[in-house]
């Protein structure tokens, strides 16, 4: 019981075969209700096609848009190893914020590229943003191999072109798989027509990935709220890394006050420890923390700071103007901020530098910049602790950018 599950986001340039591949994954893993499968087979036959899986997905898509029932199994498929949750991300440029929303929830990604058309604008942008967002497990499906005579050299050309955009993702956890989603080659079963390829199929590659586990780094506990109960004040929050026990000494940031954990609390239970990833509560001596504070272990505590080097992607039609007032949000911290300096401004689909020392940033662009917050905040480098190394920027009511913390000065 309690089977493992993994969330994967499927991205790629429009028409490169995302829907067909999703349909194929459901079909070949037997995750479709039998009635639906028979219906698709019958229709395809009547239309004189091979079983057309893109039609299946388009049909589901339409159902979704119209608000009509689709069956439970259809956003989930199973292999012998685990359950998969599919996050379908739109391929159009104007839906980039939806793609980013999807990718930020995923533990692994599947990037679809058309072998004939090759790498296109959204392929490059998606590849780059996946690595920027910190996704470390990726399958690149070079699709429609049937249209390029299953050519190995064409496959190499496409994968080499992509490599530059995937620099952030370790090659050890990247699989490049030649497939035909329409025919099912190398999706669930190995293809006879691709004998030169010795790597895993799509499903085998996915099954090798690991769920993203909360970190076993030093204790970090952003405070969500203080709940007075039975004469004590429970400090509620989620453990972003590390563990905590009664008796542990902690530091409250940004104030720097030292405190001792007097109890670990759960409703109707008496736990002795809070684990990484757990939403829980503790009581502490002396200090009175508030929402937005961070409780941390004494060894190597982070520094509360007001200047943050970051890489940011802009997601608003209205461009950024340097120094305009924004809000910085990271964990439960929320403080006024502004962009003090834009070192480099990049086109996210080509990675070419548009501008150095820029004073603006437009929709879909990426920048290496310096943030200045109105009050000290506690962050970590994204590579060290993603939970404390990623943030959003708000303008008024709206999230206009996402970002990650790059190298912090000691």
């Amino acid at each position: 019981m309690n089977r493992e599950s993994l969330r994967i986001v499927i991205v790629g340039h429009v028409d490169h075969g995302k829907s067909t591949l999703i349909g194929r994954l459901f079909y070949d893993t037997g995750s479709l209700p039998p009635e639906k499968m028979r219906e698709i087979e019958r229709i395809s036959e009547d239309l004189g096609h091979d079983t057309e899986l893109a039609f299946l997905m388009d049909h589901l898509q339409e159902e979704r848009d119209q608000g009509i029932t689709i069956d439970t199994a259809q956003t989930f498929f199973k292999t012998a190893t685990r359950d998969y949750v599919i996050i379908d991300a739109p391929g159009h440029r104007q839906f980039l914020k939806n793609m980013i929303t999807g990718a930020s929830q995923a533990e692994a990604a599947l990037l679809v590229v058309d072998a004939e058309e090759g790498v296109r604008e959204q392929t490059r942008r998606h590849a780059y943003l996946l690595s920027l967002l910190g996704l470390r497990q990726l399958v690149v499906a070079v699709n429609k191999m049937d249209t390029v005579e299953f050519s190995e050299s064409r496959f190499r050309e496409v994968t080499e072109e992509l490599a530059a955009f995937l620099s952030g993702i370790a090659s050890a956890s990247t699989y490049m798989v030649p497939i035909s989603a329409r025919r099912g080659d190398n999706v669930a079963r190995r293809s006879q027509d691709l004998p030169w390829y010795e790597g895993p199929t799509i499903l085998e590659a996915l099954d090798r990935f690991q769920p993203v586990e909360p970190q076993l780094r030093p204790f970090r506990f952003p405070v969500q709220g203080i709940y007075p109960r039975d004469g004590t004040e429970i400090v509620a929050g989620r453990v972003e890394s590390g563990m905590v026990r009664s008796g542990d000494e902690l530091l409250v940031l940004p104030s720097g006050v030292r405190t001792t954990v007097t109890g670990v609390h759960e409703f109707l239970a008496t736990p002795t420890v809070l684990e990484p990833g757990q939403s829980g509560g503790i009581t502490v001596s002396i200090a009175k923390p508030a929402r937005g504070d961070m409780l941390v272990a004494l060894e190597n505590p982070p520094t509360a700071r007001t200047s943050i080097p970051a890489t940011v992607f802009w997601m608003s039609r209205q461009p950024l103007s340097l120094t305009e007032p924004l809000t910085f949000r990271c964990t439960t911290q929320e403080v006024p901020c502004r962009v003090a300096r834009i070192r480099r401004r990049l086109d996210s689909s080509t990675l070419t530098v548009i501008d150095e020392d820029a004073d603006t940033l437009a929709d879909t662009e990426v920048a290496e910049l310096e943030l200045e917050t109105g009050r000290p905040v506690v962050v970590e480098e994204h590579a060290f602790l993603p939970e404390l190394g990623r943030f959003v920027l708000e303008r008024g009511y709206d999230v206009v950018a996402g970002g990650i913390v790059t190298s912090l000065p000691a």
Partner: protein
Amino acid sequence: MDRLSAQESKSIYIIREAYARFPKLAILWSIGKDSTTMLWMCRKAFYGEIPFPVIHIDTGYKFPEMYEFRDRYAKEWGLNLIIGRNEEAIAGGMGPTVGTKLTCCTELKTNALKQLLAGMDLQAIILGIRRDEHGIRAKERYFSPRDEQFQWDYKNQPPELWDQYKSTSEDGTHLRIHPLLHMTELEIWEYVQRERIPISPLYFARNGKRFRSLGCVPCCAPVDSTAATVDDIVTELRTTKVAERSGRAQDKEDAYTMQKLRALGYM
């Protein structure tokens, strides 16, 4: 951490974020398994004292077992229960056979909620919907804005990155907050099993039938099943391929297959 604990932790995080951001907050309790599970999580999130009102939208057509269950646990759990009814429509005889099912749902549920929201001046409401339950819900966000007309602009939703949820709403809008969005029907039951959460008896099979989803008496049909306990239901769901809401009449509008077939040249 195991999967159920991780799912619970995420839900509790969202519930606490909602409470921190919106002083004028309430939770909707349909008496079904999902919202009852969510109430349970709220009790865990806030150490037994749910710090906001619990709303039940009563159409007057619910099962007697549901009213009994509601009143029993409202008392046992010390809930601040508020019952919303569109009294005018009920007095006017609204029912599923009066107009269409759609108008009945709109009047007795949506409009009852609208009236209540306006009266209580709420900024946000917590709902127990899940992504796997219904197609359109696959596109939902955790914090989802609705305008004055309750419209959901699902083609132009705000981005929602990591655990940063929309914090404020513009005048006239309110936010719907969905702490169970990431859970599946099976996970809900596994969680009910693990936590021993009390659930309405209507879900358990009697005479070869049980309800998989609860609504109003006239529009809600039981499915064939012999699952008479939580353990049985967990076993049943691990193998079934029948959709959860297959017993819900308002979902039975399956005209699109033919439309699509015709477009493709099918007779």
